[in-house]
């Protein structure tokens, strides 16, 4: 099993590095995004400082961490469906499924690849934050941060697998990906604290795991909150993970069976 996971990771690495400019442009696009928010902060940052008192940071520090974290989540979610779609379009999904490889191994390798790739993105965000924009991360509670990351990865990977199930059947059109990237990005406190929004929207935001994940992450990184101090957010993420893992695995197996019934594994 381990050899197969390593082989899948190596294959993805070789394909990714065969696109030489892609990595450079990734860094540049992260830099451009950060710079945009740096200037937005200069222009309007002071106007929402009252909403950021809970976290004890200015708008730029808040948005940099949320965006790093959200890109982590977004990459995690999007990559399952992106990988499936890429295998469909390359025509290699059938060849892969012809090998005696368990679905769990395929999903595990995708999850690990997502993790490696997303971590790289986060390092770019945080590295630029520390060295270029002099953001202070010294208060970070490492234990809380790691727990939040693990729970977030599990729960959002489950969403990613559900999202990939849609791609297996419908090829394009992925409501889960849309909800997470668009709706959760808007309402989940990524670009501004949720307290900026009217009360009804704040209530809707509370239903999304990303709202709790981002709040917990901000508090753990900037205020050094312990696991106990963010227990409510963590409990929500645990509940979300426990509910979604079995459902996501079931949905993927169902989608695969449906695609095999339709004979559409190679279609895209």
């Amino acid at each position, binding site marked *: 099993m381990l050899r197969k996971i390593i082989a899948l990771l190596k*294959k993805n690495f070789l394909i990714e590095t*065969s*696109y030489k400019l892609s990595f450079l442009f990734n860094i540049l696009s992260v830099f451009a995004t950060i710079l945009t928010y740096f200037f937005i902060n200069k222009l309007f940052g002071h106007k929402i400082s009252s909403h950021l008192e809970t976290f004890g940071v200015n708008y730029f520090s808040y948005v940099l961490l949320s965006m790093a974290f959200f890109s982590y989540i977004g990459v995690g979610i999007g990559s399952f469906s992106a990988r499936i779609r890429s295998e469909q379009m390359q025509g290699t999904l059938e*060849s892969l499924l*012809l090998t005696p*490889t368990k679905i769990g191994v395929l999903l595990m390798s995708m999850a690990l690849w997502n993790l490696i790739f997303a971590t790289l993105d986060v390092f770019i965000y945080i590295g630029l934050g520390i060295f270029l924009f002099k953001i202070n991360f010294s208060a970070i509670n490492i234990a809380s941060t790691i727990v939040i990351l693990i729970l977030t990865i599990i729960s959002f990977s489950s969403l990613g697998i559900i999202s990939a199930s849609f791609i297996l059947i419908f090829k394009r059109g992925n409501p889960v990906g849309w909800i997470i990237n668009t709706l959760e990005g808007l309402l989940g406190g990524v670009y501004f604290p949720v307290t900026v929004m009217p009360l009804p929207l704040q209530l809707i935001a509370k239903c999304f795991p990303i709202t709790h994940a981002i709040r917990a992450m901000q508090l753990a990184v900037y205020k050094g909150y312990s696991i106990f101090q963010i227990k409510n957010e963590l409990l929500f993420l645990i509940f979300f993970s426990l509910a979604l893992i079995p459902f996501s695995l079931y949905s993927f197996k169902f989608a695969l069976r449906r695609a*095999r*019934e339709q*004979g559409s594994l190679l279609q895209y």
Partner: protein
Amino acid sequence: MKDYVLQVEKLSKSFYPALSFGDLARFNFKNKPPTKALTDVSFCLKKGEILGILGPNGAGKTTLLKIISTLILPDKGKVIVNNLEVGCEDNKIKSFIGLMSSEERSFYWRLTGRQNLEFFATMFGLSTQQAKSKIQEFFEIFKINYAHKRFDSYSTGMKKTFSLIRALLHNPELLLLDEPTKSLDYHSSSYLIEFIKAQAKEGKAILLATHNMPEAENLCGQFMILHNGKVYGAGTQDELRKKINSHSASLTDIYVKLTQNA
């Protein structure tokens, strides 16, 4: 019964067209009439036999191969590979099957030929050492000196050769070949045909889907005429000749005669 590597019993498969946006807008959720890809197809295959599935494009040949190789699920019927039923023990079955697809897009084009084969060898459960020696063995057989080049730079013939090598990497007992010599020049296709014959002599059961009658005549001992998903005749060439009462009929004549009223 244990002699059979492959048993196919009353296999049927239909494909339903997807509902269009217009259908959904009109709340018309009824399935459209299906395309019948296979209807009650049955046959068996022993070790060392080459069975030619003959039929035109759209006859159901590729669907049949994909069902046997576990990629498509049948509506009805059974497929048994080495006493294991498709749909129940698929991962075990995959170790016994090698599929050479007619599809060119089944490799990672950004990787080299060798990287592709090493990857698939690992996925088939070969150790690094086994994979390396097996791949080297095939490179010598097929005189391959371009394995370090990226797959997207290969000609159709090169891609076909790699597809066959991949199908054989894990030494499967059942080899499924879908139009193996399509788009190949005379020299390459002759070489491939001789290689396939040698594989059968070594004991592999081979299922060859083709619409190339002379090639099938040269390669296969048994034939099955498939047309619109139905079997119109099966047996040796002599048995099929008897069926149409013609002692010297070619496979093309047999095919035309058997399907003329279809």
